[in-house]
């Protein structure tokens, strides 16, 4: 049983601290939005989780390629961890987006490009886990997982652009002067600061969770190997 490396312990603490700091910035330091009020404050966590989850998903596609080329199962473990953490973060993104939408656009959901693509992307990665669950052989599981993650990862951006081309309410947040779409808002410097704090905080939190999840995966692998050895 390996104990946590010191660096990870430090990262754990840092992640929690930054979460607190970001919350403080979002709830206290950032000014209140003029029209929609305090619900706008969920935007900071919404952006933080969205940004990290999307990078996580992108990273996943790269990991797929690396696994398929090297056939080393550790890349598969890295991929599972990345997808799982991104899935959780993206869920938060979607829920926060919906909570923001309700008072801002008077609806819990809209079928605009970003929300729709977000829902589809989430479903793709849930399907990824369902695919893996149905396969016992670790090598096949890794191969199929990688291929599907890659297909899904290519399809999701295409979906986004397709919907954007063919329909169009998501506020373009950092717009110059007027927010054309309803529910948009102009960012003051206080808000920008809070946003950057959130981005940094969630990046650290993501990396912390990711590293912890990888260790879990390594542990899983160790147990699997030992199980095979003992039952032989």
């Amino acid at each position: 049983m390996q104990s946590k490396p010191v660096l990870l312990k430090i990262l754990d603490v840092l992640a929690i601290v930054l979460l607190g700091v970001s919350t403080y910035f979002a709830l206290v330091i950032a000014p209140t939005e003029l029209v929609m009020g305090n619900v706008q404050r969920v935007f900071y966590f919404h952006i933080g989780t969205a940004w990290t989850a999307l990078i996580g998903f992108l990273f996943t596609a790269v990991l797929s390629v690396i696994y398929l080329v090297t056939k080393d199962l550790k890349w598969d473990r890295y991929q599972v961890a990345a997808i799982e953490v991104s899935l959780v973060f993206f869920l938060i993104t979607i829920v926060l987006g919906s909570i923001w939408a309700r008072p801002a656009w008077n609806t819990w959901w809209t079928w605009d490009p970003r929300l729709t693509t977000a829902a589809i992307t989430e479903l793709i990665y849930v399907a990824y886990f369902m695919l893996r669950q149905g396969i016992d052989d670790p090598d096949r599981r890794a191969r199929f997982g990688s291929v599907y993650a890659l297909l899904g990862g290519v399809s999701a951006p295409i979906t986004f652009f397709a919907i954007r081309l063919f329909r169009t309410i998501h506020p373009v947040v950092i717009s110059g002067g007027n927010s054309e779409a309803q529910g948009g808002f102009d960012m003051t410097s206080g808000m920008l600061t809070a946003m950057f704090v959130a981005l940094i905080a969630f990046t650290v939190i993501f990396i912390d969770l990711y590293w912890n999840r990888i260790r879990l995966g390594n542990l899983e692998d160790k147990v699997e190997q030992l199980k095979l050895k003992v039952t032989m």
Partner: protein
Amino acid sequence: MAVKSTKIDRRQMTADRDISRQPSTVGGQSGSFFKAVSAVVWKDLQAEFRSRELFSAMLVFSLLIILIFNFALELDIKTRQSVTAGVLWATFAFAGTLGLNRSMAIEKDRGCLDGLLLAPVDRSAIYFGKVISNLAFMLIVEVIILPVYSVLYNVNLFQPGLLMVILLGSIGYAGVGTLLSAMSVQTRTRDILLPILLFPVIIPVLLSAVKASSGFLNGVEFSEISLPISLLIVYDVIFISLAFMFFEYIVEE
């Protein structure tokens, strides 16, 4: 029934043997590639022609779906215009999974897939062969559904633009679906898994196909329709290339 199935098995087995006998010389590689592809396609079409099990299932299922839509949606004359494209594509998507599932399941259960893999042909030849035969089944079913729907709802669906969209959309669907069905047939959950894997990934196809189909049916200006059609073509090219690259990773032992 038992007699019939052994007949098909023998036919499939002999067809596989023929494919195995393909020369894999360096010089004649492109020749043998096309021979392998057409052998796979021919085997599937022959087998299906004999039993018609896939085809009849897909057809009946499609008709039932149209029936259900009739009760689910108010397809009065006004709504029909806006909704026809969607109903058609939903029907094709669902009936399509049926065909894809059965097509791969037949390969696996009768050991034909293993037989094909033993043959010294490029894996991608098997992929293309399966795509073409799956596509053929889908197109045949679609070609029958179109007049049925036209008659039932008094809509003329035989417009060249619409037919082209149906072809492009079906190509994308069969291309991705064949790869994913090859995956899902090797899992424990098999049939149930294919729609779960396929539908999220195929959304761009459905989206563009419905948009373009609807455009053609409602006489929209071509400049507006060209965009979804271009997207369909782009998707088809990208995904068939990807699937073609990945197929060998899916079927290797």
